[in-house]
């Protein structure tokens, strides 16, 4: 905390009146005693004149003389901030407003010099205006005067008052222009980074500089150093000769923004770079690509290139017939291999990195020992320049393509030609070996790509409209990329033999192609001097690597890294860094994949829901159909069912169990007959002589029992229910001999006949004593009836007939319901079974 700000804290506690007065005059550029007096009398009338002196000599004041004093910059800014808040230094509501203070300053400084009034107006605007346009308007006339009319005093003024202005004023473009009018000041003051109008103006100034200077640039693994000494520089480039130097830089990243850097001429400036190539743009618009490394091959056009597996060395073939082994980390040439008598068109490295194979315009291939630089073997046989070579994965054989239109397979151990493959109608420009070692690709001037199979002959892949100059196989061995003079690349499906994608963007012939180790990016070099990186999957061009000054003839990927090396007719090899590019691509890919996964998951969820809904609907439909079918079947079954089986249930009982008989009739007619299980297949009919609804006529010439007997025989009923308690009933006599008693009662007769007919007979005996009659005359009859009932039961039991006992009517009804349900079910099932048998038989 500065002294002034500490003073504010102290004064706020012990002399708040001084702070009040300081706030009242804080808008002023300078503070005369008269201003102090007026401010005190107008805004703080209760404060005495001593406050003026106290402020005058307080630590808030930066300088003072008998004419005026000036507040410390930071104190003034803090006081203005508090003033703007409407509070005083103690946090209470201020006794006066910002407008009040401004009015006093305006009044006292009404005749003040313009510079004072301008500073105060700028201060006022910076406090009250939300935008900077009005501040700019205030300053622009000065810029006009300074630069149009040559009034440099305005520039000096800007530098002089710089520290006294509010930060917002200092940040304006117009004020920045004034500062930049004397740009030699950065040693003492950091000039603002140009933006907006300021940048436009500066660029206009720099664009008008006719002289140009050489800027030396050094490259470090993680930075570019601008303005290094020539002896330490990797590159030099031409920029406007200004002081300070203004440049835009951009790292190697997709959509990276330009960053303006400014530094004093003669000094150096370090700019951190994640990867190369970075780009430098001069103020006049020239864009330079700064690669990680450029290897100057001494102005010999590079024809062929191969990167060793160690990733640190590269072998180039030149138009002068030499090969050169390069250290990519230092850029030094380690060894020059001489022997070819013509340009070296193609180079390949044997997998062990110890040998290399080259193909030349002299029509030969040569096998080189990279340790010694000696020629191990010269392979002759082609009748024209060798344009392409490739070494088989086993390292023992090699393939070459020539302008004589043939491919030759070589035994590297013996130098023998193992096979000559002919068929192309033009020069073979490129060959590639598919990782399986059994198939090869050749690209030709005849616009075709051929896939060779030793067993079945070539397969022609046509699609390019001009010479196919290069080919590279993807790691999956099922796809290849070709580059053509028709300016396009094509992605081929080697299995189906068709073109999957065409990559367009180059503006001249494509001279070389390569594929990154992960098989996701294709690299193409072109006569348009560029190298382009393509996303194989989408076909999108990821980056355009520019920098070579002539045709790019070859490009190779550095194994196990994100770098590539290119060679050009301009005689240089360039090392490029693809890391951020691929990283961004991978990120984009992952994001895309994530998006696709999310989309797929969403679709799957939707499909699942839809399937679920469909399934439910189907189930519903099936259920409905099943229900319908069931209903239909039911109806059909009903239709097919035989007519309800008549089940006649005869209730046979004497009169003393009338309640039980009634309960039995209700049970059968009201419950069992309406039960679903029996309603359709059975038709229950209760028979009893006391049935009021019975169709049995009770004739006058006979007893009811007799009428019943004639109307229905118990043997005709399917079930006979006999209920007995204390009365057997009226004896049944022989009609022909009335003295002869056939049965003790009609119940006995019905039970006997039913049993004899094999019907279901349910016999119930009520336990307990029946009430005795009121008169003694009937007692003998009652006892006689009881003896008959007991005798009847004894006879039944003696014959092994089962009988059921019950306690009361409810107990009887429960047991009867249970017993009838069992029997009716059996009857129903038997009836249905018979019906089905009948249907089957039908």
């Amino acid at each position, binding site marked *: 905390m500065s002294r002034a700000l500490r003073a504010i804290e102290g004064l706020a506690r012990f002399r708040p009146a001084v702070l009040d007065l300081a706030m009242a005059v804080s808008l002023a550029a*300078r503070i*005369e*005693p008269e201003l*102090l*007096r007026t401010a005190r*009398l107008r805004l703080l*009338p209760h404060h*005495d*004149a001593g406050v*003026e*002196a106290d402020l005058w*000599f307080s630590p808030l004041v930066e300088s003072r003389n*008998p*004419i005026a004093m000036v507040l410390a910059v930071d104190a003034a800014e803090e006081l203005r901030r508090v003033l703007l808040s409407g509070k005083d230094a103690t946090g209470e509501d201020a006794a006066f407003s910002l407008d009040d203070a401004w009015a006093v300053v305006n009044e*006292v400084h009404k*005749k003040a*010099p*313009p*510079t004072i009034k*301008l500073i105060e107006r700028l201060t006022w605007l910076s406090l009250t205006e939300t935008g900077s346009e009005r501040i700019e308007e205030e300053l*622009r*006339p*000065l810029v*006009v*005067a300074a630069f149009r009319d040559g*009034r440099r*005093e305005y520039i000096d003024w800007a530098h002089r008052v710089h520290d006294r202005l509010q930060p917002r004023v200092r940040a304006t473009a117009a004020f920045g222009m004034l500062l930049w009018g004397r740009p030699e000041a950065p040693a003492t003051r950091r000039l603002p980074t140009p933006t907006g*109008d300021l940048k*436009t103006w500066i*660029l*206009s100034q*720099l*664009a008008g500089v006719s002289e140009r200077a050489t800027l030396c640039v050094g490259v470090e693994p993680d930075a570019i150093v601008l303005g290094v000494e020539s002896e330490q*520089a*990797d590159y*030099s*480039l031409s920029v406007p000769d200004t002081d300070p130097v203004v440049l835009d830089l951009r790292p190697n990243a997709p959509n990276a923004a330009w960053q303006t850097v400014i530094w004093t001429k003669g000094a150096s400036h370090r700019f951190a770079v994640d990867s190369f190539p970075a780009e430098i*743009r001069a*103020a*006049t*618009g*020239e*864009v*330079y690509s700064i690669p990680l490394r*450029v290897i100057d091959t*001494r102005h010999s056009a590079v024809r062929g290139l191969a990167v060793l597996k160690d990733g640190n060395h590269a072998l180039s073939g030149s138009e002068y017939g030499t090969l050169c082994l390069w250290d990519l980390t230092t850029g*030094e*040439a*380690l060894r*020059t291999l001489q022997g070819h008598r013509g340009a070296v068109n193609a180079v390949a490295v044997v997998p*062990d*990195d*110890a040998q290399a194979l080259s193909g030349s315009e002299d029509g030969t291939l040569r096998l080189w020992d990279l340790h010694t*630089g000696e020629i191990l*073997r010269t392979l002759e046989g082609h009748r024209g320049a060798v344009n392409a070579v490739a070494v088989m994965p086993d390292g023992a054989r090699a393939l070459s393509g020539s302008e004589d239109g043939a491919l030759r397979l070589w035994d590297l*151990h*013996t*130098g023998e030609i193992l096979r000559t493959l002919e068929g192309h109608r033009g020069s073979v420009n490129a060959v590639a070996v598919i990782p399986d070692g059994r198939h090869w690709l050749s690209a030709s001037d005849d616009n075709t790509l051929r896939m060779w199979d030793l067993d079945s002959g070539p397969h022609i892949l046509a699609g390019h409209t001009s010479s196919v100059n290069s080919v590279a196989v993807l790691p999956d061995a099922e796809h290849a990329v070709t580059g053509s003079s028709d300016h396009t690349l094509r992605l081929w499906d080697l299995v189906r033999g068709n073109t999957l994608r065409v990559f367009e963007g180059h503006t001249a012939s494509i001279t070389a192609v390569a594929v990154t180790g992960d098989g996701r990016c294709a690299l193409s070099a072109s006569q348009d001097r560029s190298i382009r990186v393509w996303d194989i999957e989408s076909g999108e061009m990821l980056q355009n690597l*520019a920098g070579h000054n002539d045709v790019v003839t070859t490009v190779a990927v550095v194994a196990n890294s994100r770098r590539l090396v290119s060679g050009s007719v301009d005689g*240089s090899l360039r090392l490029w860094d693809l890391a951020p590019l691929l990283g961004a691509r991978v990120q984009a890919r992952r994001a895309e994949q994530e998006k696709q996964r999310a989309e797929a998951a969403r679709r799957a969820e939707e499909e699942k829901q839809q399937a679920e809904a469909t399934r439910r609907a189907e189930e519903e439909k099936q259920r409905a159909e099943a229900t319908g079918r069931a209903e239909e079947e039911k109806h059909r079954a009903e239709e097919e069912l035989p007519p309800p089986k008549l089940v006649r249930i005869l209730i046979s009982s004497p009169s003393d169990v009338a309640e039980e008989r009634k309960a039995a009739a209700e049970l059968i007619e009201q419950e069992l007959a309406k039960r679903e299980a029996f309603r359709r297949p059975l038709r229950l009919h209760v028979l009893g002589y006391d049935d009021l609804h019975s169709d049995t006529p009770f004739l006058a010439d006979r007893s009811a029992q007799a009428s019943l007997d004639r109307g229905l025989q118990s043997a005709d009923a399917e079930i006979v229910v006999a209920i007995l308690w204390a009365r057997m009933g009226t004896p049944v006599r022989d009609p022909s001999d009335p003295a002869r008693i056939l049965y003790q009662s009609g119940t006995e007769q019905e039970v006997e006949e039913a049993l004899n007919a094999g019907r279901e007979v349910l016999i119930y005996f009520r336990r307990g004593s029946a009430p005795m009659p009121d008169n003694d005359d009937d007692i003998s009859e009652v006892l006689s009836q009881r003896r008959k009932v007991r005798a009847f039961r004894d006879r039944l039991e003696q014959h092994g007939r089962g009988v059921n006992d019950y306690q009361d009517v409810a107990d009887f009804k429960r047991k009867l319901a249970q017993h009838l349900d069992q029997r009716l079910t059996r009857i129903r099932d038997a009836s249905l079974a018979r019906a089905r048998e009948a249907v089957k038989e039908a």
Partner: protein
Amino acid sequence: VKSSEIFVGDLIRVVDALGLKASMIERAASLLGFALPVPDLARPEQKLKPLPVSVKLPAPPPTNRPDDQPAKTPILLEPVRRDTVDASPPAWLDSGVLRPAPAETDADLSFDPPYEPLFAPGQTRHILSAALATRLLEGEIDGERIVLARARREPIRIVPRRSVPSVRRGVQVLLDRRDALMPFFADQNHLVSTLSAVIGADRISVLQFLRRPTRVLSPEGLREQDYELPPSGTPILLVTDLAIGVPPLSPHMLSVDEWGGFARRAAGARCPVVAFVPYPARRWPTNLRGAINIVQWDRSTTAGDTHRRVGRGLRVSA
């Protein structure tokens, strides 16, 4: 391949013209000056032993580094493209209206701001009269004293008159020009001019000191000289802070005791001392309150206040 003068074509022509067998070709080539052996095209190429399968590439010394490998020189990069740079100046650069130029020198920065005096303008004359008037026996004839003298049969040598306050004795103004009074220099100047109007320019003398009251500036202001008291009975007006103000790092600090000594010296010369002090009464030095008539030099001071401080005219002690 060629020697200095012989070309391969020459060899071919020789072989063709002489009908040389293959075995003779090498000899013919040698005779023609070819340094390298010519491969025997009729003989199958010699089979070499198999190459080592895997040999680590050692870091080879740059034994056959290209002879023309240069010292490191920066590679001149060419622009890969040219971006369009909006280098046109802002449109307003040609349409601005020039405002008054900011001043360049300190002289250009001077101006006379409106001045507000410390004393209220309507009160100033009364305050000054009240503060600086001394008592003079120049009033009406004091009849009571005449009667009293007659009753005592005392001769009346001087006509007794009642005393009245008057500024007729004038005033000696002593301006404290130390740094501590810097904010009030303009007020001091304004006060002197006002006193001239109220009391009369011929009745005031103005002295000023830079360090201590005993050493005042000479009239021309070029040197210091000893302070001299005014004639007996003439009031002395001190325009000072009585050492209340504390300017930072000022080399001219003044103690209250010095003002006490000054007051005693003036009293010895029967010169009443009045001090105009811009600080409030609570900050006045207590040990000076009896020796010096102190008046708060500020807007809140009235003539009545002044009368209450100094009475109806300063007493000129015997």
